[in-house]
């Protein structure tokens, strides 16, 4: 059987709000982590997961000034509704979909003289909740 290779171009991504993020995003990585405590007992090591957290790294070409700008939508969300979750759907490849809520953060603004302006976000995933659908 041929080896499977999927790339970043296999990813599809959408926000609540429907802004055209796929035209701008250059990098999208969801990370889910467990906080596993280790206890040294007389029997050896014992483990307990006490928390699950997540973060979503998004790098994109800045689109300030564009109609339905993603940067402006996220800036406005961070300004007006910083505690309201934004639902993100990330499909890694056909058959592997991840839906998760993130909390808005402010985008960076500006760039260097020789390059396209870019924006990097690290969104916290609310409660570390990721709903995956594998088919």
């Amino acid at each position: 059987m041929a080896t499977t290779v999927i790339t970043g171009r296999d990813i599809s991504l959408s926000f609540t709000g429907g802004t055209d993020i796929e035209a701008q995003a250059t990098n999208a990585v969801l990370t889910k982590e467990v906080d596993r405590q280790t206890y040294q007992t007389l029997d050896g090591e014992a483990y307990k997961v006490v928390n699950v957290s997540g973060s979503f790294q998004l790098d994109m070409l800045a689109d300030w000034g564009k109609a339905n700008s993603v940067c402006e939508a996220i800036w406005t969300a961070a300004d007006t509704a910083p505690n309201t979750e934004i639902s993100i759907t990330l499909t890694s490849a056909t058959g592997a979909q991840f839906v998760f809520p993130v909390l808005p953060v402010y985008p960076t603004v500006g760039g260097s003289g020789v390059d396209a302006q870019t924006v990097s976000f690290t969104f916290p995933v609310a409660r570390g909740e990721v709903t995956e659908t594998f088919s």
Partner: protein
Amino acid sequence: MTASTILSQVRQPLATALGSVAGNVYSFVPESVIPPAVVVVPDSPYLELETINKTTIHTKINFTISVAVAYNSNPASLDNIEQLILSVLAVIPSGYVVSSVERPTVTQVGASTLLIADVRVSTYYTQTA
């Protein structure tokens, strides 16, 4: 509906924006160049796929804007090409990144000797229906 093309969405608008400079502007490589001339040609790599997702084509496009003047007297030709380069830089539309201007070189094109410098620019293109 026919999908948008790079010619209609990018190369022709760039050539149109360059239309105000004092030279003949081409959105393609012409068979013969009449100096002073500004020619939009693909750079290498031409298309770079930088964004996620492949259902729609989003790509970075690299162009070389070749700026050419007649090569008669070296100091005058250099002054002419510098002025033409500055006028080109002044009218490049928003949404373009100008990375560098290569050094002028003397090139024989057909029967004419030209002083040519390449302005490297890039922009982003999204194919629409």
